[in-house]
Each structure stands twice: as structure tokens, then as C-alpha cells.
């Protein structure tokens, strides 16, 4: 299989902060329709990898190819336009706007200054927003100010704000943190549904949740890949056990 067959191909990716290598010569390949989960102890560099892909942090070396397009040279909004969406660790939504407006602002139209001034709500956009709201279990809250949503609902809203852009690579940083058991189940269901037709990269700590969604798991440790494979083989890997349980 050549590199161009992957949705995302990361090669020799390195970033160093004043000599400390947070990510060290990382290679990571993600297929179309794949749901990959990245796990690892605190400080392993998981969030940094997402930061590098979406352009929040600039790499020192290496390449990130997304659909044969080099991302390391693009600015943040260009990476989004290329088809990469990223959810932040703490729910990052617009608290002063309603759920509807949150989704509307994220709708990929009228993205330039003058485009946004002339932007009109069409029936098509309304429909799309309704569709997404249904998918993220928020169709009854469209007119509610986003600040009033529960923590779990805010997480869903942010996922919805990404879905409305139809990204081909969706990156989620701890999507079920702070969710109730029922909300976790609903989220797992949601993730399984949305990884059709796109690739999803998830960072998560909750092992039960990981086991329920992951196609393949990558274990990061000190900026390097420690193990990769299905959940069972990774869980039985002695190196992984050592890292997680300590010496």
C-alpha cells in the first residue's frame, strides 16, 4: 500500500520545545473509514499530535500528508478547508449563542469577511442544522443558549459543529470526559455512526469506552509509538502494561 492510499500519513514527525521532544519521529497512518484511538499516559504527546495536525503547533521536522496534501505548510483555516476538523479537550463552544447559532456559525459557507456579511439562512441550511442537531441528540435544544447545556451536551454540540463541516478527518480530544454512563453509550453510538465515509482520530483515557469503539489502538509514550494493534493485543503487550502500571 502506498502512502497516497491513506487519508492521513504522518512520517518522522518531530516537535521539540527548547530541546524537549514532545513528539519524536512519529509515524502514523490512518485509513479511510477507520476509527483510531490514541491512548497513553499523561505527557505522552497525544494532544500535541492533534495540535500538530491541525496547525496549532508547528512541527520541527517531518511531514503530515492528508489526502496527498502537505499540512505542515498550511495555516489553521486552510487545514480546516482541506477537510480536517478538531474538537478540543474542554468543550469549546460559543456560550453566548444559541445551539442553532453555534451550528450556523460553523456551517461551511460565508467564511470570508464579505461572505459572512452577505450570508443568508436558506431552507437548505436550516434542514442541515436540524439533521445535525438530531444526530447529536440536541434537536429539542436548538433555541437554548449554549451556556445552559450540560457538560455532556456541550461535548456533543462541539462534535456537531465539526460534523456540519463534513470533515474527512475528525479529531476528538477526550470526547467522553465528564459524561455520565448513559451519555457515554450514546457517544459511542454516535462515533460509530459518524466514522462512515471519513476517518476519525480519538484520544481517550476511558478503557471501556476505547474497547467499545476502536478499530485499532495506538499507544504513545514519551512522544513515540509504543504499540499498535487491536485493543486486546495492545492490552496484553508487556511494554504497555509496564508503562501504565509503573515499574
Amino acid at each position, binding site marked *: 500500500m502506498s502512502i497516497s492510499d491513506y487519508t492521513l500519513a504522518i512520517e518522522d514527525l518531530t516537535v521539540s520545545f527548547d530541546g524537549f521532544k514532545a513528539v519524536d519521529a512519529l509515524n502514523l497512518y490512518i485509513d479511510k473509514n477507520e476509527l483510531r484511538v490514541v491512548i497513553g499516559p499523561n505527557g505522552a504527546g497525544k494532544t500535541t499530535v492533534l495540535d500538530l495536525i491541525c496547525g496549532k503547533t508547528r512541527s520541527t521536522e517531518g511531514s503530515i500528508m492528508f489526502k496527498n496534501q502537505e499540512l505542515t505548510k498550511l495555516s489553521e483555516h486552510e487545514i480546516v478547508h482541506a477537510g480536517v476538523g*478538531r474538537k478540543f479537550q474542554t468543550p469549546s463552544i*460559543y456560550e453566548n449563542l444559541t445551539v442553532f447559532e453555534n451550528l450556523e456559525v460553523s456551517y461551511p459557507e460565508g467564511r470570508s469577511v464579505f461572505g459572512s456579511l452577505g450570508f443568508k439562512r436558506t431552507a437548505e441550511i436550516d434542514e442541515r442544522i436540524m439533521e445535525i442537531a438530531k444526530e447529536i441528540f440536541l434537536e429539542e435544544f436548538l433555541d437554548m443558549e449554549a451556556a445552559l447545556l450540560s457538560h455532556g451536551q456541550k461535548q456533543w454540540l462541539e462534535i456537531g459543529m465539526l460534523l456540519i*463541516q463534513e470533515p474527512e478527518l475528525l479529531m476528538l480530544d477526550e470526547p467522553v470526559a465528564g459524561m455520565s454512563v448513559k451519555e457515554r453509550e450514546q457517544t459511542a453510538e454516535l462515533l460509530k455512526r459518524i466514522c462512515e465515509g471519513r476517518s476519525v482520530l480519538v484520544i481517550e483515557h476511558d478503557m471501556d469506552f476505547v474497547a467499545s469503539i476502536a478499530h485499532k489502538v495506538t499507544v504513545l509514550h514519551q512522544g513515540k509509538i509504543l504499540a499498535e494493534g487491536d485493543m486486546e493485543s495492545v492490552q496484553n503487550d508487556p511494554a504497555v502494561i509496564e508503562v501504565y502500571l509503573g515499574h
Partner: protein
Amino acid sequence: MNFIYERLLGGKNGMVGIAILAALIFIILPLSLDLFRLNLVGKYLTYAFAAVSLVLLWGYGGILSLGQGVFFGLGGYCMAMFLKLEASSPENTAIQSTPGIPDFMDWNQLTELPWFWTPFDNFGFTILAVLVVPTVFAFIIGYSMFKRRVGGVYFAIITQIIALILTVLIVGQQGYTGGINGITDLRTLNGWDIRTDSAKYILYFINAILLIGVIFLGRYILTSKFGRLLLAMRDKEDRVRFSGYDVSNFKIFVFCISAMISAIGGAMFTLQVGFMSPSFVGIVPSIEMVIFAAVGGRMSLIGVVYGTLLVNFGKTMFSETFPEMWLFLMGGLFIAVVMYFPNGIAGLWEKHGTKLTSCIKKMQCVDTVKTYISNKRVAKAEATGE
């Protein structure tokens, strides 16, 4: 039709708000004040342009500029240059050693008009310059700061420094700018004497119309997706950036628009007051404009107009009686607004105004109950045949 109703007039509430404001500045104030006081109100209303510009920039955009006086001043100076050239015709300045140039240039041994003054003998060019010069200046500042992601308190400090630099520059280059005295002794606009009573009335109304127009422009911007994006950027800039927007472009645009709005106010100031000086450019006027916006309510295009009027009336009253105390009072007012009613007058109205109206409605309810009871009594009395 729907567009005008929803977007410009802001629905029923917005329409009532703008109608009340228009009634106040078009009818009530002109009828109840003498010309001297009305001219003062006209002057205050030119500051309201800067306050309105701060609603867009600071209230919605979250970008605090402590340099709106720069743009107000640039607009004012552009207008003043035109009026000054017209007032400095060779006949009017025959006693100068170089007739035909502004008097302060002659005093500073200049013998010919500087190149950047010459186009200002054309009125069309001047109007264009009033709008374009401050906007281009704002674009340069905005581009160099927002593209580098300078924001928050750093932006505020830098804009304040720019206000200071510009003041120093104007004061220092006396021969080109009129120095600390500013550009004074302005007389006619295309031959029309702006010092007469009728001209003062006309300019007052032109200013009022422009102010309402600018409020409509603000409404248009804030009710568009652009307005929602401004709020979104103020809240979670990164989320907007990682939703595919080039955040800096939006900030540059709103900064330019706010500069242009302030500049219109500045030009109208020159026309109504009859001079322009560096004391309307520097740090103090710039901060005063922020206070006007804060007191009026930085989220309300209409509220800030009331804020501007109230603070300025207060200033006039207090500075007549306790001139030294005014600045302290103004500082205290600003702190009080920020601490106790962060949404200003508009916020107070929103909070207690609805209570007031519902209270009135309740009283009507009490009345209907009363009539209902008395009707019952009458009916009962009739039934029992008394």
C-alpha cells in the same frame, strides 16, 4: 421588506428604541433647547459616533481600542484642512508675507502649501479622505497587529501609544498642522457660512441623520453572520479559527469600519464646532470615548448614544462648578460601571425596564379584576331587586 424590518430596524423592540432616540434628537431636543445648548448636544452627538464604533469593536468584537480619538481626529483634521484652505483665500490673507496659505503656516515661515495639503481644496476629495484616510490607517495598524495575533491588553496599550504619538506629531509639526492650537478660524463650506444660526441648525440635523444611518449600518453588520462571528471570536477565538475562519481578517475589517465611523463623527465635529485641535486626538479623549460606550452599554448601539449624552451633560455641569473634580468623578464612574453594571444603561433598562412594563401590565390586571368585581356587585344588586 422583511429584510428592512428584521435586519435594520431590529424587529419591534429595535424599532421602538430607534424611534424614541430619533424623536429625542430630531424633535424634543431642538424644540426645548436654545441654539447654544443644541450646538453643544450636536458636539456630544459627534462623540456618539466613536461610541457606536466601540460597540462593534469592543462590545461585540472584544477588541478594546484606546485610540478611537486617532480616527476621530483624522476625520476632523481632513475636514478642517478643506475649510482652512477655503478660509485662506489670497484676499482673506493679503496681509501675510505669503498670501493664500493658512495663517499658521505663514507664522511658521512656510512659503508654499505642503504637498499633502494641496488636494484638500477639492470638496469631493475631502469627503473621500475623511472616510479613506482613517480606514487605511486602521488597516495598517490592524494588519500589522492582528496578523501577528496581538490582542487583548497589548492591543489596547499599543492603540493608546499611537494616540499619544499622533498628538506629539501634530503638536510638534506646527507649520504643517497648526500645532497645539489646532486648525482654527474656519468659516465657510463651499461658500456657505457655517457660523450662522441657520447653518448650525442644518449641521445639527445632518449630524443626527448620519448618526442614525451609522446605527443602521451597525445593526446590519451585527445581525449578519459577521456579527455572530464577532461574538464567537470574543468567546472562543480558537474555536472560530479551527472552524475554518481567518480570524485576523475579521478583526481587521471591524477595526477599519469602526475607524471610519469615528472619522465621520470627527468631520461633523469640525463642521459644528468650527475648529479641530490635538486635544481631541490624544489619550484622554480616546479613553473618554470608551467611558461613553461603557456607561451607555457596550452591547447596545442605541444605549451608547444616551451614555454619551449623559456623561457629557454631567461633564458640562460639573466642570462649571467643580472643574478639578471632574476627572476623578469620571474615573469613579468608569470603575462603578465596570463593577456594578457592566452592561451600562442599556443593561439596566433591559433588566428593570421589563419589570417596569410588566408592573404596568399588572396594574391593568388589578383594574380589570376591580371592574369585574364591581360589575358582579351591580348584577347581584339588580338580581336581588335592590
